[in-house]
């Protein structure tokens, strides 16, 4: 029996997707049953993530995008989200379009498999997050998109607030891949009262395009 080589996301949602796509050994869940306005959680673990560290970080322009100059700031251009983490470090998340190949520079490390990558969409997501973290997603001094590095459901996470207005509420976050199952269980449990449900990658692309 030949074993088919597949890449696996660390999480599987309850219920079956309506539409999937095979992409570079990943089976990408593209669509789940739509459930109105209720908040959604999306698995983006197949999306390429890089770590960039350099004492001269400003010299890099991954995907043609400049690194934000202040820790905590993010830029989203050409489908690439760059989050400045500290003086020497940034994370680079490929959110849409073709995946770029990693620059031939030791400053970059592919960390796609190091984390689970999730998106939360919908106007009630901040009612869910306040059950799981003390982090402040509405800090008046911060303008979306911005990065928060801190505990979410007790696990250190990188959280990017793409939008924190009622019309445009979205969070992306990563945590260590090993925590994926417990993290998704915690998020779904906290979101149950708001009817949080899984959605496919398309829902995220639609949000980005809007």
């Amino acid at each position: 029996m030949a074993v088919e080589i597949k890449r696996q996301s660390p999480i599987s949602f309850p219920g079956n997707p309506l539409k999937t796509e095979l992409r570079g050994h990943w089976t990408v869940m593209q669509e789940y049953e739509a459930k109105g306005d209720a908040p959604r959680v999306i698995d983006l673990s197949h999306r390429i993530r890089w770590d960039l560290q350099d004492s001269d970080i400003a010299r890099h322009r991954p995907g043609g995008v400049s690194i934000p100059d202040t820790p905590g700031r993010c830029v989203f251009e050409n489908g690439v989200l760059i989050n400045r983490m500290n003086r020497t470090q940034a994370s680079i998340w490929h959110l849409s379009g073709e995946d770029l190949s990693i620059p031939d520079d030791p400053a970059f490390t592919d960390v796609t498999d190091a984390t689970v990558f999730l998106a939360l969409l919908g106007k009630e997501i901040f009612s869910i997050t306040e059950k799981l973290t003390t982090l402040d997603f509405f800090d008046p001094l911060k303008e979306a998109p911005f990065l928060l590095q801190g505990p979410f459901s007790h696990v250190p996470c990188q959280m990017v607030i793409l939008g924190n207005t009622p019309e445009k509420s979205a969070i992306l976050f990563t945590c260590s891949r090993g925590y994926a199952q417990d993290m998704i269980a915690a998020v779904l449990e906290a979101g149950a009262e708001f009817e949080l449900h899984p959605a496919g990658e398309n829902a995220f692309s639609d949000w980005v395009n809007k």
Partner: protein
Amino acid sequence: MALTLTCPVCGKRNGYEFRYGGEEKGPRPDEAGITPRSWCEYVHMNQCVAGIQKEWWCHKDGCGVWFTTHRDTTCNLEVDKPEAQS
């Protein structure tokens, strides 16, 4: 946790996010001629100030930076602005 600390990268955060790294004692002493006693003094002996002391903290659940800050040990409140390291 009631304690808050101000990470030079992430700002003021809950004390749970940090790991204590001891009092600020300066770099490791020169190893030449060091005696067990003087080494023990450096590694284990502390000032234990009842008042404001300079100390190391790591933002382990956040950006991971080690930094020094000043804390009043009598009321467990951070004082002044920390100095960014890393």
